[in-house]
């Protein structure tokens, strides 16, 4: 691997980590420097919406605002470079603290993969497509009825 390829890999990994940090720190404005303006994002596998980035950006603060704590631990980042575009697949372990209707809270554990398409722009690498693929769901509170059942493979 040459220096340019190593650099691309690090920058793409940084982008994937910055996405997680933007959500976990509720700094949604950081996402403007992660996605291309016309990116397509699909969160339907974990009960969310899909659509163009502008719609996702507007939806995220409300969709995650009720959770006192959450984190998105990403790993297994597999990157395939093709000059100025790239594909990546990332595993994410996502514990989310959910307030309960009767008081108190409960931590549910979700896992998912992100299937990403990336593009090199004049400002660096950006995501132009991110599609979630569901994995395990553990300890999901019963009132979260919008959560789709984990699909078996």
């Amino acid at each position, binding site marked *: 691997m040459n*220096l*340019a390829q*190593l*650099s691309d890999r*690090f*920058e793409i990994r*940084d982008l994937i*980590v*910055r996405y*997680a*940090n933007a959500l*976990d720190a509720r700094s949604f404005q950081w996402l403007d420097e992660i996605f291309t303006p016309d990116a397509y994002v699909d969160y339907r596998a974990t009960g969310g919406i899909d659509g163009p980035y502008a719609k996702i950006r507007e939806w995220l603060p409300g969709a995650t605002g009720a959770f006192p*704590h*959450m*984190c*998105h*631990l*990403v*790993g297994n980042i597999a990157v395939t470079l093709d000059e100025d575009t790239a594909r990546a697949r990332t595993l994410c*372990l996502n*514990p*989310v*603290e959910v307030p309960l209707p009767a008081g108190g809270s409960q*931590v549910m*554990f979700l896992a998912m993969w992100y299937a990403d398409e990336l593009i090199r722009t004049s400002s660096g690498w950006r995501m132009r497509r991110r599609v979630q693929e569901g994995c395990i769901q553990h*300890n999901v509170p019963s009132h979260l009825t919008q959560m789709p059942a984990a699909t078996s493979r």
Partner: protein
Amino acid sequence: MLSLQELSDRVELEQLSVRYANAIDSGNWDELDQVFTPDAYIDYRKLGGIDGRYPQIKKWLAEVLPNFPNYCHLVGNIAITVTGDTATGRTLCINPMDTKLPAGGSQVMFLGLWYKDKFTRTAQGWRMSERVEEACFQHNVPAHMAMLAR
């Protein structure tokens, strides 16, 4: 494009967080001497621990952690910003802890936390000069451990 120096700094700084986790998980406290500067400030208060300078923290870790039969610190999402010979970092850690129960037996609690770090380049390589914990989720914490700060 990142230069070889930038890539090297990045890898060395990431390795410090991994080395910290491995030192703690294997009970190899002296290994921490290669992670922290001698006067590093460490703050574990958000998860029920103490804060202070490295020598005090090292002693405390060796006293407190052996009370837990098993534990691990899985770190990830390591975000680093290098400015010359200093750097800052943010790292996520998922920390399952096997905790002894007063009535016997044990229970595994799952803690999520971030480390907010400061680093300095020394003659021996990068070292951590500050590590402050920030709490995230807590799952399955035994009732007698309810002193965990939120």
